[in-house]
């Protein structure tokens, strides 16, 4: 296990070009904005079903996917909006899918838990905890066969390490030496259950040794640390090493799903976490340490708001699918 500690403003930091810093910030703001927007639309009754929000965890998906291209693959989870946005998904088609509209990514057949964009390597959010990991193993076989340096990243939470999929997939990927980085987002809760109740180990990275793979523990609330830790690991995978395991420690601000009153959480816990807001923290070092102009950040924020306004308008105005389309897309 390797614990990466980078001090802010020191080694490596200055090597991040401004456009990447801005891109990281833009992704984080877009994820937060998307989640807040759909939460409100859910309250208004415009989005049905279950929504699992990514608020509080934005640094993880953003920092990782900044290193990826559309040729790389990810598998995601029930809490997948952040991963999809960071991988480049179109928020119009995502939001329309949440509305259940014809213009959504899945023509209204999947919903929040099943956003897929094959063209840019999103092999699906997934409603079954842990199920994306073996699917990533298969994408790893494709990547290895293609031999073009593609990387596969299955995202999952620490709760998913309780299901057999984690063991089977990491074990198989290690045996077959596949170009995969297993990324565990430890957001401290498995649905309603805190990690100390369901995990007998302090960290998930401890488990990597059981599969003979190198593992890395990262502060998942620090986008710079995530980005800089992942960059060399991803490069190693592109050059034929792997698999690896990375644990990003973060917090989930929202409930397991929208409408979850979170009575299982100690009073004040979320407020405490909010003091360590990954977006606010990053914004402040962008201006203080990287000397990015405040006006540049404001224009990113405004552009994101505009993009989300358009996505909402598009989603509201899009038609529902024809009911007979229920019968389509069962078989190829």
């Amino acid at each position: 296990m390797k614990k990466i500690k980078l001090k802010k403003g020191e080694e490596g930091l200055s090597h991040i070009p401004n456009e990447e810093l801005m891109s990281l910030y833009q992704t984080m703001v877009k994820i937060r904005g998307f989640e807040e927007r759909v939460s409100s639309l859910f309250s208004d009754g415009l989005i049905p079903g279950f929504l699992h929000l990514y608020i509080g965890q934005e640094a993880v998906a953003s920092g990782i996917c900044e290193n990826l291209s559309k040729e790389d693959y990810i598998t995601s989870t029930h809490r997948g909006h952040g991963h999809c946005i960071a991988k480049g998904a179109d928020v119009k088609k995502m939001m329309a899918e949440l509305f259940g509209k014809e213009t959504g990514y899945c023509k209204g057949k999947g919903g929040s838990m099943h956003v897929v964009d094959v063209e840019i390597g999103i092999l699906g959010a997934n409603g079954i905890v842990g199920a994306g990991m073996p699917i990533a193993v298969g994408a790893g076989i494709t990547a290895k066969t293609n031999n073009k340096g593609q990387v596969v990243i299955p995202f999952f939470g620490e709760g998913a390490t309780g299901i057999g999929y984690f063991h089977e997939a990491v074990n198989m990927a290690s045996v077959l030496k596949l170009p995969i980085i297993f990324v565990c987002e430890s957001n401290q809760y498995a649905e309603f259950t805190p990690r100390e109740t369901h995990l007998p180990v302090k960290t998930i990275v401890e488990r990597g040794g059981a599969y003979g793979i190198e593992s890395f523990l990262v502060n998942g609330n620090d986008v710079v640390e995530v980005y800089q830790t992942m960059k060399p690991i991803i490069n190693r995978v592109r050059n034929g090493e792997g698999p690896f395991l990375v644990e990003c420690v973060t917090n989930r601000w929202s409930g397991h799903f929208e409408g979850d009153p979170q009575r299982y959480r100690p009073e004040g816990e979320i407020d405490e976490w909010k003091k360590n807001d990954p977006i606010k923290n990053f914004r402040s070092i962008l201006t203080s340490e990287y000397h990015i102009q405040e006006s540049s950040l404001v224009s990113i924020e405004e552009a994101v708001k505009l993009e989300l306004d358009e996505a909402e308008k598009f989603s509201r105005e899009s038609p529902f699918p024809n009911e007979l389309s229920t019968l389509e897309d069962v078989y190829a």
Partner: protein
Amino acid sequence: MLIRYNKAINNALREEMQKDSTVFIAGEDVGNAGGSFGITRGLIAEFGSARVIDTPISESAIVGMAVGASSTGLRPVIEIMFMDFIAVCFDQIINQAAKMRYMSGGQMALPLVIRTQGGAGLNAGPQHSQSLEALLFHIPGIKVVMPSNPYDAKGLLKTAIRDNNPVVFIENKALYGMKGEVPEEDYTIPFGKAKIVKEGIDVTIVAVGQMVNKALAAVETLENNGISAEIIDPRTITPLDTDTIKQSVKKTGRLIIVHEAVKIGGVGAEIAAMIQEDIFDYLDAPIQRVGAPFTPVPYSKPLENYYLPNENDIINAVKKICVGRQFSFASH
């Protein structure tokens, strides 16, 4: 040429792998060991370990890997050693493979084949002898194939590998040694096209898997009693060739469905329901089903013999509904 059922499958795999470099095999013991029933023997020597992959004992990850590999451009043919073991990987079959295309609004195609073998008759006991096709038959999004002879096994497997959907290819372990005439040149057998194994006019017998051969074994006794049976082998239960079955029943007015799976909730129940819904007026007698009792498959020889439907069970079912002056059964 005259070859065995197991060799016919081996030949289909080899020929498809020669023809298409995206086809690969994975599963437990399929490589150096050549498969626990010898079906993949010799393939690793010809195609190497990158295309004939020995996996850990991880059925869920094996199927999941096929989902991931097929959705990213390869054509995996995976082996689940015994059909009983599909219970271990049902999430990947039912929630992932069967639904990915639908959930993604038609974005994904999953050209994968799950080869497995089921059936009783080898005293393999309750966890190694089941016929679980009805569980799969119930799930939209997968195709289910049950070859009853070497010719069909080869032609149907080639179709399965070339199909762009998840296909469960159910071999019958009692048939592995069965010899049959198989052409040397390339051929395929379309899905959803039943085979009229024997023409007849008095009663239609729809039989699947090794029950086709039991039905053929009953023919002579039936003819000695003045009964001309038409035997139909659906070959694929999803898609099911309902037209051929209906045409036959319209001609004979009587229907018997035979499978070695448990009778209750079996494929026969659906065929019977469909016939009475659609062509009730053509029926001259109640539809009969012949299937196994509602118990696990027992181990001991006399118990397993009692359990497995045989030609006498078929003859008795025919006797029950072929009453009247024209049949000599009636006079007994």
